[in-house]
């Protein structure tokens, strides 16, 4: 036994039938007894559903066989969703977390399989049993589809979006398991991410950001399939499904910039975007657990992608009368100017979250910088390449800001050229104020993060963003001290941004959303303007200060590493060992450590 099998050869194993990790989990999760038990339970439940719904509706003469079969389809799809989206996601998240916790992932890290093969292995191997149980439900679904006469093209549309959602959910579980700092946190992070992505974010659809809703299978279901399942008298909203259809019939097409997109296509675009981001994270963590979840390039692409989706969703709402009115009729009964303020605010919130999260991910710690400098020296690079994890995140931040500002310019253009709003002098001032505040806060955040690290930044955010608002609330509630309360509270950029938005709304023609205190004359209007200017000035100063600190710190780190590397040692000396059987090097003398 002397020869190794492969010398650095990468093995690509994307076939789920032969992929070793798939084989491993298929064996472990599909032992005969537990699998047959679950198969029996599943088949019994779906049989019960089909027989109960179909026979009870037809035997009592409530529905004809076609409509009875349609009625059986929805609960069958719910069972499939529970199996793959619920149990399957849970199997992936807990499985990968358990393997990471027990350090079993290291075994696979050491094998020559390519990262893509490992990801495919876990993605399709861990939920093996759930896929098998899903297969068992298919004959029942096929029968119901045939009996109900649902066009196969619609079914194909639905299952395309269904599996796209399933893989997105599973990838979410896999990502949470790979990135959580502590393995025990994986299941919480996984649950939180799934809930956030697929329950909380879709709520933004009510404000017009429809792409968040397309992270789920709902739009395709309601847009493509639900119509086919409508009960006997289309005019009578007799069932719960019909009620839901009336509520969400906007999914027949999706307005995106000037286009009307098919919901399945839009689902695929949004889900492939999210899947790509998660695959990128998981792949990097497979290659090296110490790497940042995002590369610098990908962070820029991610923010650019989010900006396109944001801009594309907001554009028709701000620009077209029909889309704007549709949104107002559905969800909102306030004035158009307030809605405009909300949409602009939404753009800022979502962009800020995407950018600050990305900056937080790609900003190196001092330790990462140290490793990067060492590696650069090893490979003969005079400077750290910008794309390396150890490089400063400032250039990537500038690019992200550039793309976000591009998107913002699009939003401003949509408002200026809108058929809904009249462009008034003064609106530009507040839109510009918001942009300057956003840029300053982002650069301050990046500089402080790189200079002082994540913990210090979290503490700083708490002190600058949360505490002032708390103090302000106390001053307002307990002492009726409006003026100091406003000055202190505006240290939080969200408060200053909110005030700017209220001026924007006011300028656009509404006075309803302005602060009650201003309207009742408690404080002067110019005080509010003064507060906003002070806040913007403060964050501009903070951004410059943070960037100076950041640049100075990096210079000192470089110098410190150059000195350490220049001496050819890490500054430590200790005993060394050279095998006496070596013929190539002299046996080093034994020497105790020089402490």
């Amino acid at each position, binding site marked *: 036994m002397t020869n190794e099998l492969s010398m650095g050869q990468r093995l690509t194993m994307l076939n789920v039938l032969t992929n070793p990790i798939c084989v*491993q989990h298929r064996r*472990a999760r599909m032992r005969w007894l537990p699998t047959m038990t679950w198969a029996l339970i599943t088949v019994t439940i779906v049989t019960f559903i089909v027989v109960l719904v179909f026979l009870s509706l037809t035997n009592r003469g409530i529905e004809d066989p076609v409509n009875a079969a349609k009625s059986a389809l929805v609960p069958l799809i719910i069972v499939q969703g529970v199996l793959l989206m619920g149990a399957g996601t849970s199997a992936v998240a807990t499985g990968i977390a358990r393997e990471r916790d027990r350090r079993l992932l290291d075994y696979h890290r050491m094998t020559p399989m390519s990262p893509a093969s490992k990801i495919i292995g876990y993605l399709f191997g861990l939920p093996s049993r759930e896929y098998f149980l899903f297969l068992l439900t298919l004959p029942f679904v096929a029968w119901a589809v045939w009996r109900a006469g649902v066009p196969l093209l619609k079914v194909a549309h639905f299952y395309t979006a269904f599996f796209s959602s399933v893989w997105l959910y599973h990838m979410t579980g896999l990502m949470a398991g790979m990135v959580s700092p502590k393995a025990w946190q994986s299941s919480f992070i996984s649950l939180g991410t799934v809930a956030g992505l697929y329950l909380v974010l879709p709520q933004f659809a009510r404000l017009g950001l429809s792409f968040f809703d397309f992270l789920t299978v709902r739009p395709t279901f309601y847009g493509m399939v639900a119509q086919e399942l409508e009960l006997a008298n289309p005019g009578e909203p007799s069932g719960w499904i019909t009620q839901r259809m009336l509520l969400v019939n906007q999914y027949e097409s999706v307005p995106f910039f000037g286009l009307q997109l098919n919901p399945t296509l839009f689902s695929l675009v949004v889900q492939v975007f999210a899947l790509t981001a998660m695959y990128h994270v998981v792949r990097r963590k497979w290659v090296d657990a110490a790497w940042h979840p995002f590369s610098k390039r990908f962070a820029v692409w991610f923010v650019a992608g989010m900006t396109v989706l944001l801009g594309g969703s907001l554009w028709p709402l701000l620009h077209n009368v029909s889309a704007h009115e549709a949104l107002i009729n559905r969800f909102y009964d306030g004035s158009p100017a307030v809605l405009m303020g909300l949409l602009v605010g939404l753009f800022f919130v979502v962009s800020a979250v995407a950018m600050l999260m990305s900056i937080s991910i790609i900003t190196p710690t001092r330790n990462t910088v140290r490793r990067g400098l060492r590696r650069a020296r090893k490979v003969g690079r005079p400077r750290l390449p910008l794309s390396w994890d150890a490089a400063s995140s400032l250039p990537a931040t500038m690019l992200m800001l550039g793309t976000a500002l591009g998107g913002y310019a699009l939003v401003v253009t949509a408002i200026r050229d809108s058929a809904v709003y009249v462009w008034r002098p003064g609106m530009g001032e507040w839109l510009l104020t918001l942009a300057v505040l956003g840029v300053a806060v982002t650069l301050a955040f990046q500089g402080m993060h790189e200079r002082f690290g994540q913990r210090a930044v979290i503490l700083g955010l708490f002190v600058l963003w949360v505490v002032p608002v708390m103090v302000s609330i106390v001053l307002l509630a307990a002492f009726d001290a409006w003026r100091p309360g406003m000055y202190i509270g505006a240290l939080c950029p969200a408060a200053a941004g909110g005030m700017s938005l209220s001026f924007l709304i006011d300028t656009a023609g509404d006075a309803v959303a302005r602060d009650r205190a201003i309207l009742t004359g408690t404080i002067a209007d110019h005080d509010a303007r003064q507060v906003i200017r002070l806040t913007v000035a403060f964050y501009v100063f903070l951004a410059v200060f943070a960037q100076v600190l950041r640049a100075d710190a990096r210079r000192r780190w470089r110098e410190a590493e150059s000195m350490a590397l220049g001496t050819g040692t890490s500054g430590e000396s200790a005993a*060394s*060992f050279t095998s006496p059987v070596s013929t190539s090097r002299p046996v080093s003398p*034994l020497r105790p*450590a020089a402490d």
Partner: protein
Amino acid sequence: MSSQGPDILIHTADVRVDYGDVTAVHGLNLDIAAGEVYGLIGPNGAGKTSTIRVLATLLEPTYGEVAIAGHDTATHAADARAVLGYMPDLAPVWDDLKVGELLDVFARAHGLRHHERRRRVDEVLDVVSLASKRNAMAGTLSRGMTQRLVLAKTLLHRPRVLLLDEPASGLDPIARIELRDLLRRLAGEGRTVLVSSHILTELADFCTSIGIMETGRMKLAGPIEELVESLTEATRLIIELLEPAAGYENLLRETDGVGAVVAAENVLDLEFRGDERAAAGLLSDLIGRGVPVKGFYEKRKGVEDIMLEIGAKEVS
């Protein structure tokens, strides 16, 4: 390829590992040749596991160079992994897989085809004496058997370098003897084995060389015999008598070459400066003076004595 010679399979130069502000490994220099069984000894927190994870390409060092069989791990990690076998501390396994299934999965992961896969699995099961457990669930194996199963998995791709983190921890005496014999056999096949432990006696029996780590620093390193000799200024002699030893303490202290003497019951434990011939002369002299000598031994220093001398007292 790094600059070290062709038979050096593990090479580290000035390796340092930092976790934030904590330095786990300071300036580690190793050159370990083929066929060597190198024991890395140190208390918990000494930096052994960090060192092994760096060698296994699972942890990037903050500073320094690491090469496995000439492959720089910073630039050619995949090449290094191809010749590495790594067995982590506690050696976890998938409890819900059978022994044969687990090995088959990793044989597949190394790209072995059907017949070769089966042959190789049989081969490693024989090596670790687990052939009879092929169809047992891995979760039902004893601790020793689990360690052997992971070792079998580690051997599947015939690695030239084995990195074993605390492989003997928790094993009963028989299992330790089996492990020792197995590691000797693997080293005899030309592999380099680096094995860590915080229990000295686990390694002393079969390592050709050892390195003693404490708080991230290599306190002392070298072949065991050389270490013993380098730290031995005086030979310790044990003299067993037929009667209480207390009465003979002064007699020995007056003898040339004898240093400190400790008497306990029928045994005299003394420091003696001199070679084997001088020791034989001492024995002859004692018998000539009528001392009732029952036994006369030279006590060699062991790894524990070395540890105590260099001050690594935390090691159990």
